[in-house]
């Protein structure tokens, strides 16, 4: 497996009048080509900052991001982002078709653009909707358009920032399965940032658990579920239930003992904490998982 993305000792501190705020600190991980990695962390822990540094939208104050061997300085050529807020990331004055064509204008001729956009819309199950305007579609369909736009761009790395947080539960399941389907078909490398524990386990080949702000990686858990997943049976599988509980516990450790978690270069220490707090936190963790 070749490494697609490498994040080494990444840190970012915002300078504001009211003082400095460190959003992420000492983050390191790597993502292999064709992998789907979910980054899960408590709300406001700096997930968005992480995503923006990876995509080159903001420059980290320390550390390096490397995409297929090239250091990221500014937005890389072959990277796409799907934002949470589809109603803002889509351009209301462009039809669905033209929204998908939007990033292709720079590189492709008109006819090619059209074909590419049509193909991408077909993949997300919106082949008939190209002539409509975004506001004529439901929220879930709009997010499909945003996904189609990212797919049509054929990125080496697809970043998703809480992509399904603004749609209802039923639609969320559909979109999760859609993502898994296109990822299998295209062998795309995907990084999904989410605060939803179940989602991270359901989607991911691996789950990265972050601590509370300033964020660092608390655990890197492989997901040993079959590649083809199902909303009902997968969620019932023992492996799924265990992992989900594990992630929830880790998140709680991050919450109660951020400092320890931050220095988790020693995995064992974190594990000890997990063991110590397990009993006390169990109930809380479950409630948290449900609430999420």
């Amino acid at each position, binding site marked *: 497996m070749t490494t697609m993305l490498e994040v080494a000792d990444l840190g970012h501190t915002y300078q504001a009048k009211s003082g400095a705020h460190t959003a992420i600190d000492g983050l390191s991980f790597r993502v292999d080509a064709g992998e789907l990695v979910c980054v899960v962390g408590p709300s406001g822990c700096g997930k968005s900052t992480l995503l923006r540094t990876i995509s080159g939208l903001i420059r980290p104050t320390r550390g390096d991001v490397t995409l297929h061997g090239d250091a990221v300085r500014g937005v890389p*050529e072959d990277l*796409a982002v799907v934002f949470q*807020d589809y109603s803002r990331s889509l351009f209301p*004055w462009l039809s669905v078709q033209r929204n998908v064509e939007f*990033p292709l*204008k*720079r590189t492709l001729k008109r006819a090619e653009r059209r074909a590419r956009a049509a193909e991408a819309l077909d993949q997300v199950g919106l082949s008939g909707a190209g002539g409509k305007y975004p506001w004529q579609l439901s929220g879930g369909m709009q997010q499909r358009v945003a996904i189609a736009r990212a797919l049509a761009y054929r990125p080496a790395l697809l970043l998703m920032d809480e992509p399904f947080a603004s749609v209802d539960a039923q639609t969320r399941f559909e979109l999760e399965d859609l993502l898994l389907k296109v990822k299998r078909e295209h062998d795309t490398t995907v990084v999904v940032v989410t605060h939803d524990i179940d989602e991270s386990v359901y989607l991911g080949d691996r789950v990265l658990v972050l601590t509370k702000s300033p964020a660092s990686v608390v655990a890197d858990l492989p997901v040993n579920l079959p590649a083809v997943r199902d909303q009902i049976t997968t969620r019932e599988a023992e492996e799924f239930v265990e992992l989900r509980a594990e992630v929830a516990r880790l998140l709680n450790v991050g919450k109660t003992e951020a400092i320890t978690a931050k220095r988790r270069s020693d995995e064992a220490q974190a594990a000890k904490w997990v063991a110590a707090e397990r009993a006390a936190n169990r109930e809380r963790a479950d409630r948290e998982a449900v609430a999420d």
Partner: protein
Amino acid sequence: MSGFLQRWGVFVVLVALWEAAARFAEDAYFPPPSRIAEAAAELWFSGTADTLFLTDVVFDHVVPSVQRLLIGWVIAGVVGVALGLALGRSERAMQYCGPLLTFMRSIPPPALVPVFLLIFTLGTQMQLATIVFGIVWPILLNTVDGARSVDRTKVETSAVFRVPRTQWIFGVVLPAAAPKIFAGLRVSLSLSLVLMVISELVGTDNGIGAQMLLAQREFEFPDMWAEIVLLGVLGYVFNTVLLAVEHRALAWQPKQEHAPTGTTTTPAAVATAGAK
């Protein structure tokens, strides 16, 4: 259809009442509408067939007036939108220019007529300068506002897909600012009509305003009224045309924001009304 009848029915009844009242009062200052219509026909529509029955007055006064108005409006539109986009997307430029802009637009445009009279003396130059300088502010400020309203997600989306500069400006910033720009254009259009008349009232002998003054001095009140009506019709026509263009250009907007309540009650129309 019944709404249409109702609207214009009342209009017709009111005109009829005016006619009756004016005939009854026989006041020289307030001629009946029929006399005004007669005067208008005499003034503008008594030409020969080869000029489509339009008179020389139309070509010597009405056409130049309208030309000045439209040229001034187009210049102000281009300048205002271009500058507005540049300023709106640059924090620093706005910090420098913001207070100046607020002050400039606070100057009542007619107060500038004498200034331009001194700079340009009389004539088309001065009139154009008055119109352009007077109406550029609503367009400029609205464009700045619109350009600033591009939300962060759209900025980042465009950055992530590395869209070229031209596509960023014409494909993202301009359409995002378009609703505001149109509001500004509409305010400016009715303002330009005002400034056109003012600039023609101060001592030129050419244009609708000058003709109106002439009619007043010669006590030709039906002619004067005809000019007033002409200005009203021009204002109505310009506004209607621009609204139609706007409606097409902004067809992408969700329908509830563009409720078909006619032209008088939309917030943008409120802005228009604020122009003069």
